[in-house]
Every structure is written in C-alpha cells, then in structure tokens.
C-alpha cells in the first residue's frame, strides 16, 4: 500500500497548480454547462489543450496535446481542477464518446476532419442510439438506412438525444442490413443535424425540464462514406463508446462533492433551534452515506492502481456505475429529508433552497440509474461477466431481425 504518487508526480502536481493559479481568471463560470460552449469556454478549452490539461493524450495531428498516456498525470489534473473548483476541459458526448471511437476505429481522414473541431468546441455532437423500442435491448433498433443513388436514406426515430437541438452533427446507429442477424445488421453513421428530414422535439422529463429530445428521421439522405467502420459493424463500433459512457457516469470526485454539499446543508438548515445535523436519525443516515462514499473512493483508487499495473479492473470496476448512481440518489434523498417540508419546494418557489438543485438531482439521478445501462442490466453484467453465472437463455442469438425497412415509415407515422 503506497498512496504517494512519487516525486516526479509531485513536481507535475506543482506545475498544474501553478497553471491554475496563473490562469483561473480566464476560466468560464463553473455553471456554464451549455451544450454549445460560450466563446469564453472555447478559449479556455484551447488554452487547456495547449498546456496539456485536456485532450492530453490525443495526438497533436488531431488537435490534442500528444502526451504519452499516463493515468496518474490525468488523475492529478482532475484532482487539482476539482480542488481549485475551476472547470476542466469540455465534457460532452462528442469528446467523451465520439472522439475515443474515432481514435480507435475511424479512418485517417475522419480523424483529421472531426477530432480537432470537436475538441475545440467548434463542432457539437449528439448521440443517436436508443429508440422507443430499443432501450436495454439496443440491438433491436429499427431506424433503417437503405442505399439509393450512392446515399443512405434514413427513416426512423431516436430518443434520449440530449443536445440534439444544439448539435451540429450526430453519430447514429441505423439498421443497414435488414436480413442480417440482429447484431450484425447495424451501421454507425455520422451526419449533419442540418440535413433535410430531421426533426428534433424536446422531451420533457419528470424534472420539468427537457434535458433530452426525440429525433425523427424522414428520408434523411447521407453520403455512403459517412460511416465509421464497415457496414454491419456498427454494433461493435458503438460498444467501444458505451464503455466510455459507463466510465463517465461513475466519478468518485463527484460523489465526494455531493456529500460535502449535503454536510454543508445539514449544518445550515434548522429544525427549530437545532441544526438538521443535530437530529440523531438524520445524522446516522449521513454518517452511513459518508462511509459508503469513502468505500467508493478507495474502490476507485484500487481500480486506478489496477490500471497502473496493466491489470483489468475486475469486479471493483464492474460495480462502479450501479453503486455510484444509487449512492448519488441516496445523498439527494437525505438532503430532501433534512429539509423537511422545505424539501418539496421547486420551480423557483419562495424559500426554495439552492435553486431546487436537490430535488432536480434526486429526480435526474433516478434517470441516471435507468440510463446508460439500467441497474438491472448492470446486475446482469456483474452476475454474468463478473461472477460467471449462467446466462439468461437468449432468443436473440437464434432469431432473425424483424421488420423490413419499408415497415419503418408506417411505424414512424404511428409514433407521431
């Protein structure tokens, strides 16, 4: 057990701190999470890339900093920006999911064309994966593309397309081989959101906000070379990015920050003369959550160490999404309980606390428990991959894919 990063990393940490101190006045406000980054956020992103504090390991020819991968350096950068409460590099689906996919599976031309403008915030992406009938069973997707005059012609519907309104481009899974087996008939296409035939409708959620959209495609025409990987390989291309999304949802620093906010809240809010934290039942729940957050923090350090040794993350990694999302939800739940009746205030009500953030989080985190692989799918993965338990009998392995492309237009009509 050695929790020191070592002298060369202490030097690196000092450099990061010095950079942050010297430049933090240029950073955009932390709350500036708009899908389309402000010009200040874009300038900040460019400065961070130039110094290697984001896009650190992406090769220079694609607009990155071009450092050798070093997990501890990346970790130190994340720690120091979090500690200083200064926003790090842009984080969106283009950067977190599409860029890694291109780096792994894109053509040279695609990498040169798309990675740099994506990193620099000039091109915003959205993700077209889930459909009304293809959630956990994503490979059941029905949005189709057939070839006509050297173009894909796309028809169908996607759902949960966050940032679709603001996005310039979409990376999208469509069924191009209607007669191939379920997983083998999918292609990974990229196209402009300005293409005629695309309609984006906001999808209002239980939070009262439209954090997502539904996106409809009617005879959307896309050149056949706007594909990542080969026709029919889209499932494997997409799986590379799903891994990145699961990694993104389990961030131990985020849990620690939520817990600290909860501790602050419980020391401020008063029940009569006493603070919320003076209530022994609420306090007991707080300490129980604190212990769980600590467990996840050290679990994260163990996963980090495993990767440093070049070992697979194993069970410690497989459980992160399930446990972190649940824990985040429980933290918000306690905050609401600690506020008592004030805990239900929302929609900019008088006396509302923290802009209704606890209620929003409580609801949105339930969305995160469901999204990105539901808790139940996570448990299947833990049981089957981690514990090597017998698999569920899988009808998909034997059945053929159902509807033909021609059925899709009528299905879309139905969805309208």
């Amino acid at each position, binding site marked *: *057990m050695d929790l020191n*990063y070592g002298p060369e990393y202490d030097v690196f940490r000092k450099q990061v701190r010095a950079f942050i101190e010297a430049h933090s006045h240029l950073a955009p406000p932390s709350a500036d999470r708009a899908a389309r980054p402000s010009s200040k956020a874009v300038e900040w992103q460019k400065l961070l890339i130039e110094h290697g504090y984001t896009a650190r390991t992406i090769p220079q020819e694609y607009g990155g900093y071009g450092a050798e991968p070093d997990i501890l350096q990346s970790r130190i950068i994340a720690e120091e920006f979090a500690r200083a409460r200064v926003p790090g590099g842009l984080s969106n689906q283009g950067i977190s999911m599409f860029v890694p996919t291109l780096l792994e599976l894109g053509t040279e031309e695609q990498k040169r064309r798309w990675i740099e403008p994506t990193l620099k915030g000039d091109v915003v992406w959205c993700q077209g994966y889930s459909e009304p009938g293809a959630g956990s069973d994503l490979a059941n997707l029905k949005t189709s593309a057939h070839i006509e005059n050297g173009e894909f012609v796309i028809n169908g519907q996607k759902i949960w397309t966050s940032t679709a309104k603001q996005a310039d481009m979409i990376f999208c899974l469509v069924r191009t081989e209607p007669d191939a087996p379920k997983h083998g008939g999918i292609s990974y296409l990229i196209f402009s959101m300005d293409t005629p035939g695309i309609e984006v409708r906001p999808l209002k959620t239980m939070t009262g906000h439209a954090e997502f959209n539904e996106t409809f495609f009617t005879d959307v025409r896309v050149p056949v070379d706007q594909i990542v990987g080969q026709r029919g390989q889209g499932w494997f291309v997409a799986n590379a990015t799903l891994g990145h999304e699961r990694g993104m949802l389990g961030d131990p620093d985020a849990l620690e920050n939520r817990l600290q906010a909860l501790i602050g809240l419980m020391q401020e809010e008063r029940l009569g003369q006493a603070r919320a934290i003076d209530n022994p039942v609420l*306090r*007991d729940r707080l*300490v129980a959550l604190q212990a769980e957050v600590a467990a996840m923090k050290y679990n994260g*350090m*163990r996963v980090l160490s495993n990767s440093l040794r070049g070992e697979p993350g194993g069970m410690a990694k497989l459980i992160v999404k399930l446990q972190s999302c649940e824990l985040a939800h429980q933290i918000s739940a306690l905050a609401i309980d600690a506020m008592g009746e004030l805990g239900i205030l929302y929609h900019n009500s008088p006396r509302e606390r923290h802009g209704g953030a606890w209620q929003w989080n409580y609801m949105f985190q339930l969305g995160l428990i469901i999204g990105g692989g539901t808790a139940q799918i996570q448990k299947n993965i833990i049981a089957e991959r981690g*514990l*090597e338990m017998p698999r*569920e009998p899988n009808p998909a392995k034997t059945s053929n894919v159902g509807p033909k492309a021609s059925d899709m237009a009528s299905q879309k009509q139905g969805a309208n």
Partner: protein
Amino acid sequence: MDFGLSQDQQMLRDAVSRCLADTSPLSHVRECAERDNPLSDQVLRALNDLGVAGMLVPEEHGGLGMTLLDAAVVAEQLGYAVAPVPFLASQVLAPIALRDAGNEEQKAHWLPKIASGEARIGVAISETIEVRDGAGVSSAAGKLNGTALFALDFEGADAHIVADSGGRLHLVGAKASGLKAIALTTIDRTRSVGELRFDGAEAEPLADDGGVATARLRDAGRVILAADSLGAGQAMIEKAIDYAGQREQFGRLIGSFQAVKHMCAEMAARHEPCRSLVWYAAHAFDAVPNEASLVACHAKSHTAEVHRFVARTSTEVHGGMGFTDLLGLHYWFKRIGFDRQVLGGPEVVRAEAAALQGWTNAA
C-alpha cells in the same frame, strides 16, 4: 502509487488460506463447535508455525513487527474459513496494548511469549464503548472491582487486558484471586468470549495515557472485525454462486434466473467496495493517524451493514438447504453476526464517527 496488497501480503494471504484449507475444514469447525471451548489448538499451532502469533509483536521482542494491514489480511482469511482460533485479542489487540502502553518489564515478560505462542492474552474493553447490564470496572490501589463483559479470546487466556471506566488498561492474570471468569455462549461457536467479575483482583496498570491506548484498541479491533466479516462475506457469496450454478428447478439452473442472479450481483456490488475500505482503514491505522479512528468506524459500520445483507441473501439463494445445518452455511452467517455486534454495532459506531467530526450537538 499502489493501492492494494504488496507481494508479501499476497503471499501471506495465500499461505494462511492454504494452511486453513488443510487444517480447518468445515468438519473440524463442526467438531470444535460442539465443545465447551471451541478454540482449536491444532489450527492455532499451524498458524503459529507461519508466524501469525508474533505478527504485531515488535522485532526487538521476538516478533515480526508487521502492520495492521498484514493482520487484516490474516483476519479476512480467518473469516473466510470460519476458523475457530483466537486472533483479534490475543494476536492483535494485546500486542498493540503492550507495545503502546506497556512498561519495559511488561513488554519483556509478555511480548516474546505472545510471539512464540507460549502465552495468550485476552482483551476486555466493551464498557468503553457501551455499558450493558450495569457492567464496568473500577480500579483503585492496584485492585480491580466490577464486571467486564465480552472479554475477547477468553478461553485459554493466561491473562486479560481490561479497560477500567476511565479508559485505562490493566493487566490481570487469569488465575488472580478475586477474579471469577464465566464463559458466555454466543451464536458464533467459532469464537470464545466471557465475563470477568472482579472482587479486589490484583492487576498491573498499563500506562496512564488518558485512554489513548484504549482508543487505539477500539480502532484496531474494529478494522480486524471488519476484515473478518469481509472474508466471511466473500465465502458466503462464493457459496451462493456455486449453489446457484448446480441447483436445477423448472429444468434450469437457478443461477440463470434473474431473480437469483440479481441477488448475487447485489451482494457482490455492495461487498466489493468494502474490501478497499477495510484495506484503507488498516493502512491508516499505521500510516495516516489523523484519519485512523474515523475510517475504522466507517469500515466497521459499513461492512456490518453490507454483510448482514450478504448473510441473509446468500442463505436465501441456498433456499431451504441454507436454513439447515447440513450445509453449515450458518457458521458464516453467525460469524458475520458476531463481527457486527462486537466493539459497537453500526449505530453506536456511527454516533462515534459523528462525534469525531464535531457533528454531535453538545446540548
């Protein structure tokens, strides 16, 4: 940066694991559990041959001078095997107490004997955590009066280290006049605890350090109980998965049903982070003193909650067979139950964690 066990610790773990697999199979645990004194001399001797007795005894007193993380590695294996041996008090807490608060004479007398396995010392500090049934020990003029409950590693102890109501530790011979020792019978027939009744029993005080050593014993004890529970929980999860992979109903392995699979996944998902928490708590005891007490509380209370869930869920996965004595699954269930209550149940420990952070309103 390396968060995990060193090569040496992995070798220690494997050696203890092999030793227990050879010397302490379930059949032996069952034999021991039938006896008044369940502790197994044969398993203890085998562990002592590996040096376990002297792990925490400083090298100048004939021990190995190892860390609490090393001891936690052993404790996890003991829990995994439900090994009926004294460990928590006699091989962890007593050497720490003597090392930290013993005078030179006491150290020179006892520590080499602990390291060689010649002497075993039990520890009774329950009343510094919570007082039940009016128990408690007072000391005056080198004599102890009162009652200490849940004296750990009780049977076969040559002496006991006992905390008085001021938190000061005293060493009292098991055969001292004015000491009446009564065994307590718990659900867990792989451990030995007892009650010490003092009526002017002669005792040697350890250092008057304002309860510092006693607090260290609480921290160390909680980490070791958490590690034991971790090992016992690991075994229960493995047994549930094995069983679900063999048992057929409705023409299918029950492990292929999501209802069963998800029970196992939930156990694993809640259990796995406990391992990192226990490792860190053990590490902090020696290396990060300002965090040691808080993280010991977290490790104790959180593993207790998680493994109560694991113990009942694994039993349920085994169906009716889990409820019988035939599989012996209940030895692990009860071991986890013991680990939960001793040295403070989760609520008591969490209240202490809150107080450590200044969260408890004095009013």
